[in-house]
């Protein structure tokens, strides 16, 4: 397919987003466009579905396989601690630094830090569950927590 056509196809969602923002306002238009575009795109995917006969998957179709990791109990417990409480504290520490040090209205700082915290915690979860070097992850998360909470406490007390 011609690259121009492909580019035009991918450009359609961007144009639809711009039109929705013009018609309904920036936030409302974006929220409407993102929900409706997803429905439209899935409709296009459904139109192009292929019905196949029962068969074993061919080699080229195989998706990447998850990495087999050692199944020791202590690694599982440490991994859960890293992804759960430690990841949460580290994310909270960075978010608190944002709330304390970001310039601007305190309400904006608080809400932005609130939005940042789940994202950071989610990223910490992804990383600690994927990284096989658990001690490195432990050091980074503990360091981030101590440093972040300390810096935030200094700013909060000031």
């Amino acid at each position, binding site marked *: 397919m011609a690259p121009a056509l492909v580019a035009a196809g991918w450009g359609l969602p961007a144009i639809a987003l711009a039109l929705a923002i013009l018609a309904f306002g920036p936030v409302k238009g974006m929220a409407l466009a993102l929900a409706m575009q997803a429905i439209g795109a899935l409709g296009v995917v459904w139109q192009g579905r292929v019905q196949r006969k029962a068969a074993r998957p061919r080699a080229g179709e195989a998706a990447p396989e998850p990495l087999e990791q050692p199944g020791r109990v202590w690694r599982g417990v440490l991994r859960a601690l890293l992804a759960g409480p430690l990841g949460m504290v580290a994310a909270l520490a960075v978010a608190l630094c944002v709330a304390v040090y970001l310039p601007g209205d305190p309400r*904006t700082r608080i*809400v932005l830090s609130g939005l940042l915290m789940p994202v950071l915690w989610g990223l910490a979860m*992804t990383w600690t569950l994927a990284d096989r070097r658990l001690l490195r992850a432990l050091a980074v998360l503990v360091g981030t927590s101590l440093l972040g909470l300390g810096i935030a406490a200094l700013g909060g007390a000031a």
Partner: protein
Amino acid sequence: MTEQTPRNTRSKQWRWPLSPETVRAVLSSHSVLGLAFAAVIYLVCLTGTLVVFSPDLQHWEVPQAPVVPSLSDRAAGRAVLLAERQAAPDATLSLSLPGPARAGATLMAYGNKRAEQTWAVAPDGALVPMDAPWTEFLLHLHVNLHLPRSWGGFIVGLTGVALLSSLVSGILAHPRVVRDAFHLRLGGSRRLQEADLHNRLGVWALPFHFTLALTGALLGLSTLIVAALALLLYRGDTQKVYGLFIDPPPPADARAVPMPDIAALLAIARARTPEAAPQTVSIARHGRADMRITVNSARPRLLVPQDEVQFDARGTVLAEEHPADLALGTKVLGGIGQVHFGWFGGAAVRVAYGLLGLALCVVTSSGVTIWLARRRDRGRAAPQWERIWAAVCWGQPLALMVTAMIAMVAPRAPLPITWLVLTIAIVAGAALVRIDGARLAVGLRRALGAGLVALGLVHAATVGLGPIDGVLCLGGAALLALTWPVARRSAA
């Protein structure tokens, strides 16, 4: 890397930024997280999908409640006066006026000493009680799993974080995200079919899934975040953090005063912001001299009402706020709930949210199915887990449908306990019974289909056919029709 496709020009031009080993490690993280949280993510997504339609479900449960397309200021004033007589003295009254995003006018009284009361407002301002126990049960199951508010909210918030993390790892572990963007291969290998469904529904609706997970996580974790902020900034006084977003209460004055003319206040609010239409009227400390009446108005191009006029007990304007006066944080905070539940754009947006919510349920369900199919392909089938997962996926809608039936015939029945007992019975039964997981899924789907049709028919026969009854009957019939060929294949 397991990808063994022939090299082509595109792969020479651009490569996935992660090494094959990293992709596999991230996929492993995706699997672990998905499996650990699958059931609770599925439950929260399923109930959330239904909660999107709670304005419609309330009217389905209480069909005698009027749905007015518009309400005169005079009728609004009468409704407030009537509610004042019935509400607890410490209750706050909140009148929602009909608008483009939501048909019908409702009045709610909420406070600390008595349970919430909700009424639908008739065209003349008369109040019709609108207690919808099943919708209420569903909402609390979604928001806090019927656990104590802070614990339940934290678990739901943690689920949102796990979903966010799964979305990130799912994308990072999908090197063929663009190349396979339009592939949907049904039939053939079960694992490939489920993977295609999982990836297409996950990727194309990613902005929706991400927004929902983020806003849900923030709503659930807000207590924790506020507590941490208060500890750091205000020596643990959480009220000081909340105080940044809400007005401080006026000096107490408990002398009894009559309610001012709400119609006149609405006219003043309209005159102050002609480009906005009044959407809610809130009355705090009603009947007292320190009463505060707030009229919030919405502009068509804004997501939520951002114009506010506040009056005292005599109807004097005390303060007003308009979009330009609001901090970005206040605007964002005001929109989070609306964006999360899809209550900002009328029925079309609710239907879109409902469909995308179902897509997220399928993404969650297919994720576990892929893992189970992978185990089976490797000769390590887990039939007990296959049955349990079938019981979660099809047993949860079945349990919710049964609670709806019970609420219809016995509105005072303890729905949370009923739901819990049903859930335990279905999952424990699935773990113990010796039956193929696929056959169990078919049986549960049939039971769900038949139950949905019965629910729609009984409701239509007793109170008259409504749109939700039609959806229930059609959805149930579709489920029954879809299970027939599957049943034949299984038998063969």
